[in-house]
Structures are given as structure tokens and as C-alpha cells.
């Protein structure tokens, strides 16, 4: 059916009687299928149901020209269905309706008693709901009062939003009359429209009829209609109207005196209860209930009485300023809570006029409270060498840098001493800081400091401040978290801190010397939380990584090195990068003391000594012996030393492919 473009929201007068319905209708037109689906509008005849419905359609099509809108009355719907049944094209009928992006069905009260149509309606409705199609119904009564309506349809009709449109009140009637007069270019004497509006017509069509009559009288007789002659000209119509309508709708006809009294009171109220004042007072009432001081808004009402009423723009501006201040206060309150209670006095947080004071108090608090230490700047991500032994951890860190708080939260890095956990954590922190331009609050704390600070805070009864400091961070990195093992209170606080930060989507990174599952004395709730993100291990540097690290160390020390030196050094097993750095430093110092250039021979002499006794730990000794003799017996002869070698079976296999096929038990 062709939509009548005359029905729009901008020519529909909104008053207290229809405000809810129009708001809902606008919401539906703006985002069909998402807000109120279905929307069910009901009212007595002549109050604008169809106008609202078509306004939805016109507005929706204006916003989305490609939207397929299907509008029909129930009668048309029934006729179409009957025809479809007659010619055997029910499926096509269904499909046509299901293809619609929005279905508008007017006067659904006529479904009463039509069982077949109702069941078809039910099927169609369910299909439309599944596809998210917006459906709007109108009726002259609420769904539950439609006679002989299938219970399932009643629940479906009521499933979205059911709104009613009541008869217009005096102000709305006045606004409607003025709009019509403007549209027609008709002018009446002062007071005529007021006199018509005062007659409480039960619906808008009667009101239109009354106005038409006055327009006709004025144009036919050529004399101006006067306020006094309104009732006479409208005759019985006025008498009928006076007995019904808003304010007078219920009960038997009242005496002229009381009716006229109510009419006068209505006029006085509408004069003094201007819409802008109602809006301001609504806001006052709302914000006061929310606990905010509203003096700022109340002054708007107390402003010079002789002054012209506030314009809509003034009210909008004042309300927007107030709301913005309230929002800011709320955020100040949230920040203040992090620094502990009473950081900002409660009365400041309730008074938008004292926002500036509250902000200053917050700033003072922020400067007083110690900020947690950030990452150490000397650990850069670019300086972190990647090899097969740590590439998974590095990859995880890079992912966190890309999407902090989203991808791997928490990230748990574990590995032996000196493998680069601390470097990696700090490098991650520095990257995040750099990317955010320094705006992220990144805390990089050693768990031992974490425990010490907690104990201190407990002793000084400053646990709230301690918590606030930690909860304020955007990224928390806790190094050597194994220091928390066996410390119940620390674990409890860490658990709450974890939950708090996690719920806010803040990134957490932990490091430890072992995996969470291997930490005895760690609460299960913490263990599961640590394991809930990504747990990655950094293994001791492999051959390739050692080469890179030695090369970098030698270059950094300004040593001219050759491949033989690097190869020799890389053949030394080192537990981690830290040990490796120490080794390079020793060699460099040794070479400087000897006054000779550092080469493989010098390094060998320095590390293995004249007697060939290695200076390194037992693992290295065992290894070098094994290397020189090539026999497993020699390894065994080193007593306890070989146990250390077999800690990592893969490494053994990598280094000595000739024993790869033999069972490890045999080697032991």
C-alpha cells in the first residue's frame, strides 16, 4: 500500500498524553528491529495511532531509503490472505511479508474471532521475529482486551512495548489548533482558539470538526468569530465535548461552576507551569534523588521573574552544562576512590558547582600518593635477542603490545634465572608506555617489593591507600611472583587486585622461575587465574641465541671478534643471558689486563686455564670433558655432574645427535 507522506513526526503535536508513544515510535523509526519489537500502540479512535504509525514508516524510509516497508490494515491483510488461499499462493503471500524490513499492521483489533487469520499471523510473526524485522501494531485497545485473540498472539503482541495514546490535554489541543490554523493561513480573534481548546473534546477529529465549523462560519458570514460566540457556534458539539476529555472524562456531567473552575485552573496551571520550567524541575528532582546538589539548576527557576521565560536553548545549555559537570564529578569520584576514602571531601563530589574544587583536591591527592615504579628504561624490546628458546614468549609479548588487556591476560612468563624474564617484562612496559605517549599507567614491580610494601601498609594501617595505588594502574607487571608463595595475606590481596584489574580489562603480566602449576604453596584460585591467560616458558639460551648474545656483548664492549671466538664461546653452556654477559665482561677485562687482543685462543686459556680445568660450573665441566673424550663413561666419571646435563633431554639430543637413538635411562 502506498504510504501517505503527509503523516510525519514534525506535524504531529506531542503532549503529555502521547509523549511516550511518540518517543517509542521515533526510536523504532531510527533503529528498526532493535529497540521495541513489536511496538504496540493503542488508543481510542481519532487520537493519531495511524499518524504515528505512518510517521514511523516515513521517517524510517527517510533514514534508510532502501528499507522495505509493508503497511496494511488488518482488513487488507485478511483480504490478501483470502485471495492467496483461493489461488493457492499462500507461500508467495508469506514470502512477500517476510521480505519486508518493517511491517506495519493497523487496527489489529479486527483480528478478533478470525481464527485462521490469527494462526497465519502467528506463523508470520514468528518468522519476522526470527529475522529481526520490525513490526508495529495499532489497535483501539490493549492486546489483552481484544476479544477471541489467541493467547499466543497476546503474549507476542505484548512482548515488545505496549503504549497508549490518551486524549490531548488543553495545551496539546491548543498547539494542534494553532498548527492547523497556521497550515491553512486562517486567523481568529484573540481568545477564540483558547475557547475552543477549553472544550475538552475526546479526540482530535472532533476538535478538527469544531475548527472546520468555525472556519466555515467565519468565511461564509464574513464576520469574525469571537470567543463569546464559540460555544453558540459549536452548539451541541461543545456541550458534548465539555463532558468528556482530559480532566473531565470520568464521572457524570459536572456542574457548570465546577467545570468552569477546572477550566480556569487548567489555564492558570498551563500558564505558570511552562514546559521549560517542568523540564528544569524534572532535572532538579532527578538529580536531587541521585544525591547531587541542584542549586545550580534551581537558580534558573529563581531568575528574575519579570524576565521573559527561558528559551529552549538556554534550558538545553544549562541542563547540558549541569549534566557534564555531574559526569565529571562522577569520574573524579571514581579516581578519588583509588587514592583512598576522603581523598576528596564527599560534599564536593555532590556539588557540580564545586567541580573545580573537587578536581583540585584530586590533583593534590594524586601528587601526594606515590606512583608505582614504571618499567626500567634500559630494557628495550629491540635489545632483546630472539632465538628458538624464547621465541614463544617474545611472540606473546608482541601480541600483548598490540592489544593490551585483550589477547593474553594475564601473560605468565616463567624460566630459570637470567633467561631474560625481567628484560622482557620491562621491554613490554616500555613499549606500552611509548605507544600510549606516556598516558598509560604502567607499573613494573618485583614481587618481593610488593610483599614488603603490603606488610608496611598493614603496619601503618594504610592498606586502602596501598590497594588504591595498585588498582589505579593500567598495566601491572609483577616480576618473580614466586616470592608470594606461602604468604597468605599477600596472595589474598593479589587475588583481589587481579580480579579488580581483570574486570576493568587491564593487562597483567607475571614472571616466575617456574610455572604456576609447579608452585607449591600458591592458592589454587591464584594458580588457576595465572594459568587462565597464557603461560609461556623461556628456556636457557640455545646455541643460536648464545651466538647472537655473545656477538652483541662483544660488539657492545668494542671488541673486534671473529667467528671462531663466537663459535668457541657459544659452545659454553650458560644458564641464561645474565651469566653470558658476565662471562663476556670477564673475558674483556682479562684481555685488557693481558694487553692482548681477545681471540678464541685467549678465551680458551682464560676460561679453561693452563691445565685445561674449566672455571665454569660442574655442568660446563662435565660437558667439556665429554666433548674432549667423546665417551659416556667420562660423563659418568664426573659423578653428580651429569645429572645437570640431563635436565634437558632435548638439549642433549640436539648437542649430541649420535646418542639420540639411545634411551635416556641407559645414559643415566
Amino acid at each position, binding site marked *: 500500500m502506498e504510504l501517505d507522506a503527509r503523516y510525519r513526526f514534525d506535524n504531529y503535536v506531542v*503532549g*503529555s498524553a502521547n509523549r511516550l508513544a511518540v518517543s517509542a515510535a521515533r526510536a523504532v523509526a531510527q533503529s528498526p528491529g532493535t529497540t521495541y519489537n513489536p511496538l504496540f500502540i493503542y488508543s481510542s479512535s481519532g487520537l493519531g495511532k495511524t499518524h504515528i504509525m505512518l510517521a514511523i514508516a516515513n521517517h524510517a524510509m527517510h533514514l534508510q531509503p532502501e528499507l522495505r516497508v509493508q503497511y496494511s490494515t488488518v482488513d487488507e491483510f485478511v483480504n490478501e490472505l483470502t485471495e492467496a488461499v483461493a489461488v493457492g499462493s499462500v507461500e508467495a503471500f508469506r514470502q512477500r511479508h517476510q521480505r519486508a524490513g518493517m511491517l506495519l499492521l493497523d487496527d489489529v483489533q479486527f483480528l478478533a474471532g478470525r481464527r485462521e487469520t490469527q494462526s497465519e499471523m502467528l506463523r508470520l510473526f514468528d518468522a519476522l521475529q526470527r529475522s529481526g524485522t520490525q513490526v508495529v501494531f495499532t489497535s483501539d485497545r490493549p492486546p489483552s482486551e481484544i476479544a477471541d485473540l489467541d493467547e499466543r498472539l497476546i503474549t507476542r503482541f505484548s512482548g515488545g512495548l505496549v503504549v497508549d495514546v490518551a486524549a490531548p*490535554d*488543553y*495545551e496539546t489541543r491548543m498547539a494542534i489548533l494553532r498548527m492547523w490554523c497556521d497550515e491553512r493561513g486562517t486567523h481568529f480573534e484573540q481568545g477564540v482558539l483558547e475557547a475552543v481548546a477549553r472544550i475538552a473534546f475526546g479526540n482530535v477529529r472532533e476538535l478538527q470538526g469544531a475548527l472546520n465549523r468555525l472556519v466555515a462560519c467565519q468565511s461564509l458570514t464574513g464576520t469574525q468569530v469571537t470567543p463569546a460566540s464559540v460555544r453558540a457556534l459549536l452548539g451541541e458539539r461543545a456541550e458534548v465535548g465539555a463532558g468528556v476529555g*482530559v*480532566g*473531565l*472524562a*470520568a*464521572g*457524570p*456531567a*459536572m*456542574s457548570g*461552576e*465546577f467545570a*468552569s*473552575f*477546572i477550566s*480556569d*485552573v*487548567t489555564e*492558570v*496551571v*498551563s*500558564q*505558570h*507551569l*511552562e514546559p521549560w*520550567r*517542568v523540564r528544569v*524541575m*524534572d532535572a*532538579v*528532582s532527578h538529580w536531587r*534523588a541521585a544525591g547531587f546538589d541542584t542549586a545550580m539548576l534551581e537558580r534558573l*527557576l*529563581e531568575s528574575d*521573574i519579570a524576565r521573559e521565560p527561558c528559551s529552549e536553548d538556554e534550558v538545553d545549555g544549562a541542563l547540558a552544562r549541569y549534566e557534564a559537570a555531574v559526569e565529571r564529578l562522577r569520574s573524579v569520584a571514581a579516581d578519588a576512590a583509588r587514592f583512598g576514602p576522603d581523598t576528596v571531601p564527599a560534599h564536593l563530589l555532590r556539588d557540580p558547582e564545586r567541580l573545580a574544587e573537587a578536581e583540585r583536591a584530586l590533583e593534590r591527592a594524586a601528587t601526594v600518593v606515590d606512583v608505582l615504579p614504571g618499567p626500567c628504561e634500559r630494557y628495550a624490546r629491540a635489545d632483546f635477542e630472539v632465538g628458538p628458546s624464547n621465541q614463544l614468549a617474545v611472540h606473546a609479548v608482541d601480541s600483548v603490545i598490540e592489544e593490551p588487556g585483550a589477547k593474553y591476560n594475564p601473560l605468565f612468563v616463567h624460566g630459570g634465572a637470567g633467561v631474560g624474564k625481567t628484560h622482557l617484562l620491562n621491554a613490554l612496559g616500555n613499549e606500552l608506555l611509548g605507544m600510549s605517549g606516556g598516558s598509560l599507567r604502567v607499573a613494573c614491580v618485583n614481587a618481593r617489593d610488593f610483599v614488603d610494601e603490603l606488610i608496611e601498609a598493614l603496619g601503618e594501617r594504610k592498606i586502602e591507600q596501598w590497594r588504591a595505588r595498585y588498582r589505579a594502574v593500567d598495566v601491572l607487571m609483577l616480576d618473580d611472583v614466586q616470592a608470594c608463595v606461602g604468604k597468605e595475606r599477600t596472595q589474598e590481596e593479589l587475588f583481589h587486585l587481579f580480579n579488580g584489574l581483570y574486570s576493568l580489562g587491564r593487562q597483567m603480566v607475571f614472571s616466575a622461575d617456574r610455572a604456576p602449576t609447579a608452585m607449591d604453596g600458591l592458592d589454587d584460585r591464584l594458580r588457576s587465574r595465572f594459568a587462565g591467560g597464557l603461560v609461556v616458558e623461556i628456556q636457557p639460551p640455545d646455541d643460536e641465541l648464545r651466538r647472537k648474545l655473545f656477538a652483541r656483548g662483544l660488539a657492545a664492549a668494542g671488541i673486534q671478534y671473529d667467528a671462531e671466538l663466537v663459535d668457541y664461546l657459544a659452545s659454553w653452556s650458560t644458564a641464561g643471558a645474565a651469566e653470558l654477559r658476565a662471562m663476556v665482561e670477564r673475558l674483556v677485562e682479562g684481555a685488557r689486563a693481558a694487553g692482548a687482543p681477545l681471540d678464541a685462543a685467549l678465551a680458551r686459556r682464560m676460561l679453561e686455564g693452563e691445565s685445561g680445568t674449566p672455571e665454569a660450573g660442574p655442568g660446563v665441566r662435565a660437558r667439556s670433558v665429554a666433548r674432549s673424550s667423546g665417551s659416556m663413561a667420562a660423563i659418568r666419571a664426573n659423578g653428580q655432574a651429569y645429572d645437570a646435563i640431563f635436565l634437558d633431554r632435548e638439549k642433549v639430543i640436539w648437542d649430541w645427535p649420535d646418542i639420540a637413538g639411545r634411551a635416556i635411562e641407559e645414559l643415566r
Partner: protein
Amino acid sequence: MPLVNYATREITCKIVYYGPGRSGKTTNLHYIYEQVPSARRGKMVSLATQTDRTLFFDFLPLDLGSISGFSTRFQLYTVPGQVYYQATRKLVLQGADGVVFVADSQARQLEENIESMQDLHANLAEHGMDVRATPLVIQYNKQDLPRELILGVDVLDDALNFRDVPAFTADALHGHGVFETLRGISEQVLRRLSGGTPGAGRQHARDTVGSV
């Protein structure tokens, strides 16, 4: 009592009919009660003695329906006029949004009228209400009595209406001037919706009611 409750969308006006004994306060309420359709009025509570004198107070709630989206109610009270019910009068006056002073137009009642007016001012002051800011209208009742028995509006104005508030002549028994008075006080009270001051502009009895 707040005049407007924006949270519940209600306008409630408490209007107290004040005046000397037998001046016709209860009669005013009875006439209003008769004119209001039953659905619009609450039960009129009248605590009267056997001789029809108000012992405590009369209370008539009126439901004016929805006005500008606000459910509007008027609560009309009378006080016992006799001098010895001072405490009751003070109690009823508490929280009043507006006062109708019903004066007895009979010449011999002039003193009682003046005393009652003074009593009203004293009671308002005791409630901490600014007399000048409280909406007030005066009704010169019993204007239907023979001319020789009653005082003219000018005389009554001189004696009672020193604040220059709107005054209305009335014959409450037959209803003349009753709704005009109610309308007058309502207008005064409802002006406060926009923070306007009551009592601005004198509306003279003879202009509004004419002769009764």
C-alpha cells in the same frame, strides 16, 4: 507540603478557610462539595457538634484530574472559628498553600472579624510563614442579608483588607461567590508554580462578583 512534586507528577494545594465562628466557612465547603461530581471529590470529613458547629475541622479533597501531565489535587480545610479552638486552628494552618479568610459581613461581627484576622496573622507568624508571601483572599460572606445589617465592601476593606489582597463578596448558603473565591485563591496559589509572588494586583470584589 510541596506544591508540585515533580517526581510523582503531582500538584497538591492545601487551602484553609479561616475566619470567625459562624462566618460560613463550612458552608463554603458544603456548596463546593455539592457541585463536584462524586468521582472528583473525596469523602468530606466534618467533625461537627450536634449544633453544627465545627469542632475540629472540615476536610474536602478535590481531584482536578490531570493538568499539564500533573495529577492535581486540592485539599480544602476549614478551622473552627470559636476563640477557644486556637490550638486546632494553628494545627490546621500548618503547611497551608493558601488561605481564604471568610469574613462575616454583619456589622455586629466586625470585631470578631478583626480579631480572627489578627489571630490568622499571629498563627501564620508562629508557623514561620511570611504573611506577605502567603497567598490570601478575603470573602465577605452573607452579603445577601438586608443592607441595614451588613457593612459595605469599602468599610470591610478598610477594616480587614489592609494588605490589599483580592476580595470577593459572597452568599455561601446559595453559592454566590463561592467558586469565585476558590478560583481567586487557586490562581494565587498556582502562581507560585512559576515562582511569582501572590497578591500582585488587587482584584476588587465589586468588579468580579457584582452585587449579590
